[in-house]
């Protein structure tokens, strides 16, 4: 089954003509050190998790910050930001032959709703969500997965990816670079980036 690359350029197989346009300001929290400087703070970055504030000092997203009454950073994201900045690498995956119950237990254990599904040649064959797997009962994942796969490339703008999720009524987009699956972008990732869907 072919993978459909979505985007708004000539290489795209599925043309997204109206990318979602947005400028989002994320209010990011953290913990200040006794020095009360940004460089010595700990920041709960929506992109990287808990990081040193010294990383934030040179970050292009940081616009402003305050140390009191609590640490607060104002970080901006816009629709031209590439998918690779917000995708999750090493996406949880399963195979077409795996039993649905086992795949669902794996997804729950990894705390994800979507699993990429690979065939015996280790090519991307589909996407299965928790709802698919629950109705699969004792059967194989291949019986319940969505075999029509829409994907984006790492450089695809977030605005295009957000529009694709909405226009195609899907919950995730595998991120593909040439023959390789390099990540996954879900609605949850867009939510982390403060993008309204």
């Amino acid at each position: 089954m072919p993978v459909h690359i979505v985007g708004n350029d000539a290489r795209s197989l599925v043309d997204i003509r109206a990318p979602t346009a947005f400028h989002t300001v994320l209010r990011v929290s953290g913990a200040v050190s006794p020095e009360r400087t940004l460089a010595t703070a700990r920041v709960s970055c929506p992109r990287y998790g808990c990081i040193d504030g010294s990383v934030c000092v040179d970050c292009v997203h940081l616009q402003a910050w305050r140390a009191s009454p609590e640490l607060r950073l104002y970080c901006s994201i816009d629709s031209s930001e590439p998918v690779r900045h917000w995708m999750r690498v090493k996406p949880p995956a399963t195979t077409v032959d795996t039993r649905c119950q086992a795949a669902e237990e794996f997804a729950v254990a990894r705390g994800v709703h979507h699993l990429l599904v690979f065939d015996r040649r280790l090519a991307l064959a589909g996407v299965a969500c928790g709802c698919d797997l629950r109705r699969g009962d004792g059967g194989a994942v291949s019986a319940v997965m969505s075999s029509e796969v829409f994907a984006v490339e790492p450089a695809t703008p977030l605005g295009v990816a957000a529009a694709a999720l909405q226009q195609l009524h899907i919950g995730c987009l595998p991120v593909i670079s040439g023959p390789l699956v390099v990540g996954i972008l879900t609605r949850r990732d867009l939510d982390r980036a403060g993008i309204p869907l």
Partner: protein
Amino acid sequence: MRPRILIVDDEPNARSALAELLRDEGYEVASVADGLSAKSRIAEFRPDVLITDLHMPVLGGLDLLAAARAMRDGPEVVLMSARPQPRGVTAPFVGKPIDIAKLLSIVEARASRRG
């Protein structure tokens, strides 16, 4: 009454973030993308304080500073830039990314000068 603030910055992300944080602080805020638009917006919005980026393509921060000072009852001007503070400039300056505590103390001090 809280001071009215006009933000001038050609970078949309910086402009919207600064506007949101100042609204969080309770200020009445308007924003424009260049110095030329700012000159006309000053007449309508009548800001107490104008916070402007130094380097903009249409009309830069220093030109805007000169224009504001030439106005009768013009706004107090605060300059901001990701580059170092230029020498010899007499207006208050904040670096980017903006330290909000520093900016707010400057804004309050400048606004109080206007009564």
